[in-house]
């Protein structure tokens, strides 16, 4: 069982092995830029692997800086570098979502440098509000996406295959949600392990992932392992997929009891309505992707309420935000979250970071000071 868990933990950290194996079998891999509202179900229904694109962990971004000044989110720079340096080969397609301007432009640069004509490129844009008009428009855009995808790859995505994909991905979400629910009252996995497992779901074939995690669910409560005993914190970030940060938090004495990350809770918190999907799978997908916890490009008040609800449910003592130094959406949003958290009596610390681990010592010092203060109940504005 530990070997099975290790499979997920390794895939969650590294994120390429499963995709490479998939390609070796002659099957197609479709890269998705995160944070994402791209309906993976569509890709899955076409028999292809939806694969979350990751950036290089190398500090050298000399290729990418031909296109990007240093004052842009390092996430985008490291993704472009990963492709330009040859560390990652371009998959059979790249799909973006207009979560913010920087992300949109990362997509533009990738399309510019990926000159292979057999590769599919598409960017989706999603509503900033949920009204009947917006939902209708989002359904139309998803439908257009399906048509473009079918036409390009000469495949047919039937309602039946889409419904089956919905059920499969819902299973992924439900299994992960069970892990999260177990962590409410027991420490079956530390935060770093939980997020590695969740991250694995974004790059592995879903059936394989479901099979492994399904088998692990009975084992996990019996598992003994070192779980940090320090204050329970909620980690929030956008575009954070570098597990070294989570390791650092837990090495510094806190437990990541809960998260608001795109590769974590936001990925699995809700499921697609399968009953609705029976009659209209595209509508069901549109509703799911609009209602699920999201990168805060919009729906600020909803997302703040959700975070504070998680604080209560998970007995969290403080919120730690690790925001990309030039990730403007997170920075804007966190200023509001901090005001609301303080009103609710919840301590919050917001620290800027790079995509790769940098200034480790400084980060650790600040984190440890915060954890000490909240442990001792001495919180004042940090």
């Amino acid at each position, binding site marked *: 069982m530990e070997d099975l868990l290790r499979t997920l933990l390794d895939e969650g950290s590294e994120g390429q092995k499963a995709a490479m194996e998939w390609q070796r079998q002659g099957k197609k891999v479709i890269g998705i830029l995160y944070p994402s509202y791209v309906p993976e179900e569509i890709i899955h229904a076409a028999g292809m692997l939806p694969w979350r694109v990751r950036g290089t962990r190398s500090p050298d971004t000399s290729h990418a800086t031909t296109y990007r*000044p240093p004052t842009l989110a390092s996430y985008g720079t490291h993704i472009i570098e990963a492709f330009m340096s040859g560390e990652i080969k371009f998959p059979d397609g790249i799909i973006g979502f207009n979560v*913010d301007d920087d992300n949109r432009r990362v997509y533009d640069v990738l399309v*510019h440098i990926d000159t292979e004509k057999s590769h599919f490129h598409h960017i989706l844009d999603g509503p900033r509000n949920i009204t009947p008009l917006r939902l209708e428009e989002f359904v139309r855009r998803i439908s257009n996406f399906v048509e473009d995808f079918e036409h390009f790859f000469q495949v047919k995505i039937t309602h039946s295959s889409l419904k089956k994909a919905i059920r499969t991905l819902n299973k992924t979400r439900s299994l992960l949600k069970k892990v999260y629910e177990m962590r409410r009252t027991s420490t079956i996995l530390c935060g770093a392990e939980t997020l590695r497992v969740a991250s694995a779901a974004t790059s592995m074939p879903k059936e394989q992932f479901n099979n492994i995690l399904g088998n692990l669910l009975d084992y996990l409560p019996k598992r003994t392992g070192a779980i940090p005993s320090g204050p329970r914190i909620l980690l929030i970030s956008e575009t954070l997929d570098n597990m070294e940060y989570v390791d650092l938090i837990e090495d510094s004495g806190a437990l990541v009891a809960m998260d608001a990350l795109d590769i974590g809770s936001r990925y699995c918190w809700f499921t697609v309505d399968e009953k609705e999907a029976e009659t209209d799978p595209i509508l069901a997908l549109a509703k799911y992707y609009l209602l699920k916890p999201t990168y805060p490009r919009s729906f600020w008040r909803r997302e703040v309420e959700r975070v504070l609800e998680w604080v209560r449910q998970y007995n969290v003592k403080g919120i730690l935000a690790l925001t990309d130094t030039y990730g403007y959406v997170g920075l804007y949003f966190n200023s509001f979250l901090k005001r609301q958290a303080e009103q609710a009596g919840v301590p919050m610390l917001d620290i800027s970071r790079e995509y790769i681990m940098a200034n480790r010592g400084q980060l650790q010092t600040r984190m440890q000071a915060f954890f000490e203060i909240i442990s001792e109940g001495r919180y004042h504005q940090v």
Partner: protein
Amino acid sequence: MSFFENHIAQMNRRISKIRNNPDPRYLKSNLLRYEIQRDFWADEIQAWENGEPFIYNEGAIPDYLAVAMGVNVIHVTPYADQCFGDEVQKYLKIGWEAGVPDWICDRLAVAVGMVLSGDVPQPKFIAGYARSCDASTQMLHLISTYFDCPSYIIETPYVYGEDSLNYVTKQLWEIIDLMEQTVPGAKFDEDKLNEQFQKHLKASSILGEINRSRRQVPCPLTSKDVMRIPRFGWGDLDRQLQYLSNYKDEIAEKYEMRLRSGFKERLRLAWLVSYPFFYDIGSFFEEREVSVVLLEIGTVGYPPKDRGIMGDDKEYGRRLTPLEEWSRNQVARPWGGTIDRRIDYLRHCCKELKVGALVHYIQSGCPINNATAWLLAEEMKREFGLPSLLLEGRMLDKSGFDQKDFESKLDNFIEVTTSTRFE
């Protein structure tokens, strides 16, 4: 002193200068322009004192709709763009403390500071767009957390066409409904809408003529004129139409004089994104006989090819309603969607305006532009052999500005470009 009082004082200073000691380098029609602006600010003060409702509009609805609804408008970032001197520093401080990241586009921080300072009225409604600058959409989210009023973000799809036009127009109708329900006294008046729209159409026609004249070699507009092409819509429209007519005639007159004086044009430049508003860049170029033929983000930029032209009935095969005209404008914007739109737009401008070189202003904290400036420069070089200078700076915050360095980079670029003769 309120924002309006400060800017009335500024306009009065300019008016006094023109009356007492007119500078021949500047247009005579500026006098009317400043008077209209001053009177507009005075009307805003009056409306505020009368307790009339204000809405915050960040490019979501056209001026003619706001008038047709009977509401007063604070144009968030366009008002911020008017700020100068100590006012900028004051609003920056407030904006940064309120949650605007300090590296992001300074006009957004100034805008937030301005609205939170109490120097402008509080809103009954906030309307914004999600189209070409998401950082400004986030700014509006931030602003709305400080005011207890409804807000609405209009979205513009990435594709051209009737579906997109209809989607944007339907959202305008939703905004109208929502404003009628929530803004005291707001009521849609279709006759007023049509009346106002006709004036905007006339203005668009005059500005279109002025814009098309830029194709001529040498350019009839000076660099200074291009950097300051007038905005239409704030204040008395009839006076503004008179001003535009005077402006157009004066430009033509000035051009004749320049030609007679043997003016030579060393270089035709496209200036992209924005520029430091506190620096007289127009005069800099004029002294060097360089014509800025395109300011990409002017108040009235050069129109895209076959799109977004007010009054045109070919684009959609029919005449559009006033609300559809606004939607058409939104859908056509080059900064919306993916970068190929902007590449197409620049391709069109470079050809039509016979551009010889480009300056990309790397406005600090502008991801929409900075994340593809190098790609654009590469494309323009590849396709037209045009050289680009990528120049960093801010729009409103003068504090880090090194004038000598700025000018020296531009001078070097002009020298290299004009001596090498890129074909």
